[in-house]
Every structure is written in C-alpha cells, then in structure tokens.
C-alpha cells in the first residue's frame, strides 16, 4: 500500500516540477568534455547576453566526446539537449533518434539568429560537414576538425627524409634512437584502418546496420589486402617499433620511451614536453605493399555538436548549438584549448597555421577518409590489429588471407 502512495506522491512531484519549469524559462542542458567546461560556460554566458529578452536556464554537464555515445544511447530521453561527440559516433546516434535532422524544419530555428543551415554548411570545411552528414542530411554542427592522426617526431633524431617512409623511419630509429622507439596503436580499428584506406580499401554501412568491408580482396589501386597486412607485420616486428595500447599513448609519450609517435593534436602538448626543441610533426610515412609505395592513409573527423532528438526545447537548442560552433566560438576554443577549428575563417587565423600539429594534420588530411562503420567493426578490427602487433599471424600469403577472411566475416556479420 505504501508503494502506491509513494508512487502517487512521486508522480505529483514530477508533474509539479514540469509545471514550474515550462513557464517561459527555456531550460537547456549542454554536455562537453571536462577540459572544455570553462570554455563552454564562457560561451553560454555570451549566448545569454545575446538574447536578453529570454530567460534561459542552461545547465552545463560533463561528458567527454569519446564516451558521449555510451551515455546518450543508454537513455536518450535523459541526455543533454546539446552535446558534443566525436564524428564516428554519428551513425549510431542518428539510428537511436538521439540527433535531430538539421535539414528538416528544425533548421529553420536558425532564422532567429538570422542564419540558415546553408550558412553552416558554407562556413565549415567540406570534409567536416561530410563527417556530420548521414544519407545526405546534416545531423550536427562541426565544432572542430582535428580528430585525426599523423606523425610526431623528434627532429634531433630524424631528418626530414627519414620520416618519409616507414622503412627509413624505423631504420633511423634503430640507428640513432638510442633505445627510444617509434610508437603507434595497432589494436584499434581507428588507427590500423589507415594502412588499408591508404591502399584504396574501403568500409561502409548498409541501411540495415551491417558494415561492408573489402579488405580481404584487391583494392581499386591494385593492392591486395594480403600485401597490406604483410607490410604491417614487417613494421610491427621491427625492433624499433612499439605497439601501444589505445589508452596508453600519452603515458608512453610522457615517459620518454618514444622518439616518434602516431597520434593527434590532443597529445601535442605532451609531445612538445617530451621532445623539447626537437618537436616536429608531419604526415604519416609511406609503406611498401609489394613493389608499390603507398602513402599511409588515416581517418579524418572532428568533434561535432548535436541537438538531442528528444530535446523539448529543440528550437533554442539548435540556436545554442550553432552559437557554440560559430566562427567566434571556434576561434575562442583554439585560444583556450588549442582545438583546431573546422570553420574556414577561423582556420585562416595565422596562429592556427603556425601550430605545427594542426599543420601536420592538414598535410595528412589529403589522405584522410571519413570512416563509416557499424558496431561490429570495432572489436573485430581491434583484435586484428593486436594479432599483427603480437605477430600471431604468420606472414605467408595463405595465413594472412585466412586472417583477413575471418576479419571481414566478423565485421560484415548481421547484427544479431
């Protein structure tokens, strides 16, 4: 009996809360990474100042971009109205209805700010817009475009010629590295896919959520997947190469074990501290697949700001999301956190151009692809990379082909 009285009470309480909250105040929540909290707070204040007629109640919460998907998908109705996430999560978030389609009526909310979705598309670099687009529709606002990897190296160890190919890089590290190694994460489908993308292989996603993958065949460039894996095995087995677990990179950089490392802008400060005056960055090296020299590709992407499909005040959420990702905000974000902008004007800022890491990312971006994959992709490719890192795949053609077939079978399996 007690249960039901308390249920009634609770229900009344919830009703009362809704009743008071909806009276003209516009309640919104925003989620961003821990280190962006101050930046977001500052921009939210600026936003409020822009619309003095409205009463906002904007709450800022912590959720890193890399884990946003996990929290949002568990219960989208409880997630923030506006949240930041990494572009590779877009597909799953859209499928769960956790992002609104900006190319629909929702986009018109921007009229309030005398803007339109087309402005957004024009102001940001096309690749960042591609990363926020699914099936031809824009689902989020790009807020940065620096979520890619390239090569950091210590210029006191390597010359500019050394870093052009993996062979010369590893040879130089063996020779002059004094025990310091060349590090890269292999046990992650985000990093190891770069070798395949560089050789012209692709991944994709069908409407039913099944990932497509052609890595066990021959690419349009005439390279076989077997050759790519054999090249990777050769790199991984080099004494100067160190395969690093995904979460361990910044730690390895900081501990001074590395003289070159494949990572991204988020590690720039750590690398700078570790390499000191030798700090340098460039695009990824090339590798030899059979007798072809291939530029290692990479996955490009950025952080996006989306509006929750279950947001009540979606209109204002769209306006706020647009504001948090506009030119001014992105420029400010670069100033406070050295986040590389996706906004074309903000990119033109000379300080951005001088940033070594962002410059190297720009060089690499010609070989970067937007990665579209489904849920089955990650564990399978992670395991595949780890097998290469530990050398558990024999390098003869038949074994490699068998391993690749098993990988493709797993990645392209139906979602049960």
């Amino acid at each position, binding site marked *: 009996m007690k249960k039901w009285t308390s249920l009634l009470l609770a229900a009344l309480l919830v009703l009362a809360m809704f009743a008071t909250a909806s009276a003209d105040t516009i309640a919104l929540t925003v989620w961003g990474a*821990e280190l962006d909290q*101050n930046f977001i707070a500052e921009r939210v204040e600026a936003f409020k100042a822009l619309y003095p007629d409205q009463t906002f109640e904007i709450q800022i919460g912590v959720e890193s971009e890399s884990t946003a998907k996990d929290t949002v998908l*568990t219960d989208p109705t409880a997630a923030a109205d506006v949240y930041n996430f990494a572009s590779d999560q877009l597909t799953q978030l859209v499928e769960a209805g956790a992002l609104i389609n900006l190319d629909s009526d929702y986009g018109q909310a921007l009229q309030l700010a005398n803007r339109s979705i087309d402005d957004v598309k024009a102001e940001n670099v096309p690749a960042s817009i591609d990363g926020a687009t699914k099936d031809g529709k824009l689902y989020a606002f790009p807020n940065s475009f620096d979520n890619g990897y390239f090569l950091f190296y210590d210029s006191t160890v390597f010359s500019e010629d050394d870093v052009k190919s993996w062979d010369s890089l590893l040879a130089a590290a063996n020779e002059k590295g004094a025990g310091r190694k060349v590090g890269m994460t292999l046990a992650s489908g985000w990093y190891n896919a770069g070798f395949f993308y560089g050789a012209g292989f692709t991944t994709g996603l069908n409407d039913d959520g099944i990932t497509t993958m052609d890595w066990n065949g021959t690419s349009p460039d005439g390279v076989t997947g077997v050759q790519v894996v054999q090249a990777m095995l050769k790199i991984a087995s080099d004494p100067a190469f160190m395969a690093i677990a995904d*979460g361990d990179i*910044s730690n390895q950089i*900081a501990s001074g074990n590395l003289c070159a490392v494949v990572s991204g802008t988020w590690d720039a400060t*750590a690398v700078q501290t570790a390499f000191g005056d030798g700090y340098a960055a460039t695009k990824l090296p090339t590798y030899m697949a059979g007798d072809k020299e291939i530029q290692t590709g990479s996955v490009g992407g950025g952080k996006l700001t989306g509006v929750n499909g279950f947001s009540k005040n979606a209109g204002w959420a769209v306006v706020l999301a647009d504001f948090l990702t506009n030119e001014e905000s992105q420029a400010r974000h670069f100033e406070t956190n050295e986040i590389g902008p996706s906004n074309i004007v903000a990119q033109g800022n000379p300080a951005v151009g001088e940033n070594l890491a962002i410059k190297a990312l720009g060089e690499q971006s010609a070989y970067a692809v937007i990665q579209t994959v489904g849920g089955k992709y990650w564990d399978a490719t992670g395991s595949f990379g780890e097998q290469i890192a530990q050398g558990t795949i024999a390098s003869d053609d038949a074994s490699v082909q068998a391993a690749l077939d098993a990988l493709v079978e797993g990645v392209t399996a139906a979602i049960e």
Partner: protein
Amino acid sequence: MTQTIKPRMSAKKRTSIVLHNALIAVLAFIWLIPIIWLVCTSFSAYDGINTSTFFPTQWSASHYVELFQVDTVNQFPTWFMNTFKIACASCVISTCFVLMVAYAMSFGKFKARKPLMNVAVMLNLFPGVLSMIAVYFTLRTFGLTNSHLGLTLVYSASAGLGYLICKGFFDTVPRALCEAARIDGCSEARIFWQIVIPTSRPIIVYTIINSFLAPWMDFVFAKMILNAGISANYTVAVGLYRMLDKSLINQYFTFFCAGGVLVSIPISALFFIMQKFYVEGITGGAVKG
C-alpha cells in the same frame, strides 16, 4: 601472547621464532608493495603515471593540497561528502533490513519461512549487473535518477537478501533466554530489541561495515544513475574513475592516487577499530550459516 621472550629459551627455538616472523614480514611486504606504490605515487610531483621508477623522482604533497581546490575535473571534497552521506543513509537502511529479515528468518515460525528462504537463494544466483538497466528505468519512473536518494535505495533496498550470515549468528542466540522473556510477557518486538540485538554486537558491526563500504567501492551503478554529467553530484568512486579517462589520465593520475589514499584512510581505521567484532561477526554467522 606476551612479548617478553623467556630467558631460558633454547637457541633453536629462538631461530625458529625469528624465521617465523621473518616469513610473515616478507609476506606482509609483498602484500603491501602496491599500497606503498600508491602512497608514494600520491606524493609525487609529477601528474601522470610514473613507469620507470618505483619511487617518484620528485616528492611533493601538492596534489593533496590541490585535491581540496575544486576545479572542473576535480571536486574531491564534494564527492567525499556525497559518498559519506549516501554511505551513512544506506548503512542505516541496510543494517535495519538485514537485522529485520535475519530475525524473522531465525526466530519466526511462519509457514512461508522456508519457501521465502529458497527464493532468496535463487535470487542471489542472478548476476546483479544484468538488472542494472531495469533498476535505472524504475528509478527514472520515480524521478530518482541523478539523486542521492535513488543511489541510496540502489545500495540498500535489496539489502534484506544478504541476511544469511546474520541469521546464522542469530541461530546461536540461546533460545532459553527468549523463552524466559516470553513467559515474563515480553512481546516479540521487545525480545528483538532488548534481548537479541544487544547480544549481537559483532554481527551488527559486521553488517554496518559492509553496508557502509559499498557506496565507496561501487562505480558501475553510480555511473549509470548519476548520468546527468553534473560532477558535483558524483560519488568518490565515479569521480576518481573518470580521472582515468584517456584525455585526463596524464594530468590526473596522481590526483587519483591521492584521492585513493584519502578514501582508504578512514576505511582502514574503521577496520582496525572493528577488527575484533568483524571477525566474530563473520564467523559467528558462518559457523551455523
């Protein structure tokens, strides 16, 4: 056991004592290595993980000081108070529930007793993490997610299921005592309050410690229920766990260690004070459990 060594002790015996204690010392040392590393690292001046040397290259207590200076990532004092509140509340509720169920199951003579006990055994065989999502939605229905009340309920509402050890202890309480009281006209409630509870100090202490500890240790449920991203709402476990996020670990690992040490101190003290009761409590229950 006295600490004076008898003067006439033979040399052989003395060596055996020395060897015996040396063995214990070696074992204790092995057991404490990670703890020593935790304490040392927490006094490091360096922010990230030290992988090359056991002892920090530069000592400093600055992270303890900074732990109490709140920033956007670290709100340790708030987390500590949150956890403390939740731990106290859930401790009271769980202890009451456990004692109530244990008493009913040990002293009660009702028909449903056996079936209920069998159901409890079955329920304990299901993995708890499985039911998380259902618990989450139940709490959400009552508007209790992102609230400390909700979290308290998660830790304490099902506490009654853990009655078995306590029941075992109650089984050892002499029945003659209760019979005598019953003849004197005591109600069941008074027997429970005035006879059984006072003789059960060890098991009560055991129950209190166990239920007090749960909120300090759990991060899985807490993370799921405190999902609004308001870090001022976190418990210590969730807050510290987040410091190990890829993007933060290099700046916050030492904070994590310092926080871990600060959490462990009161718990160790609790264990030290309660050691005797704790031992008696577990075994009193286990003997007959």
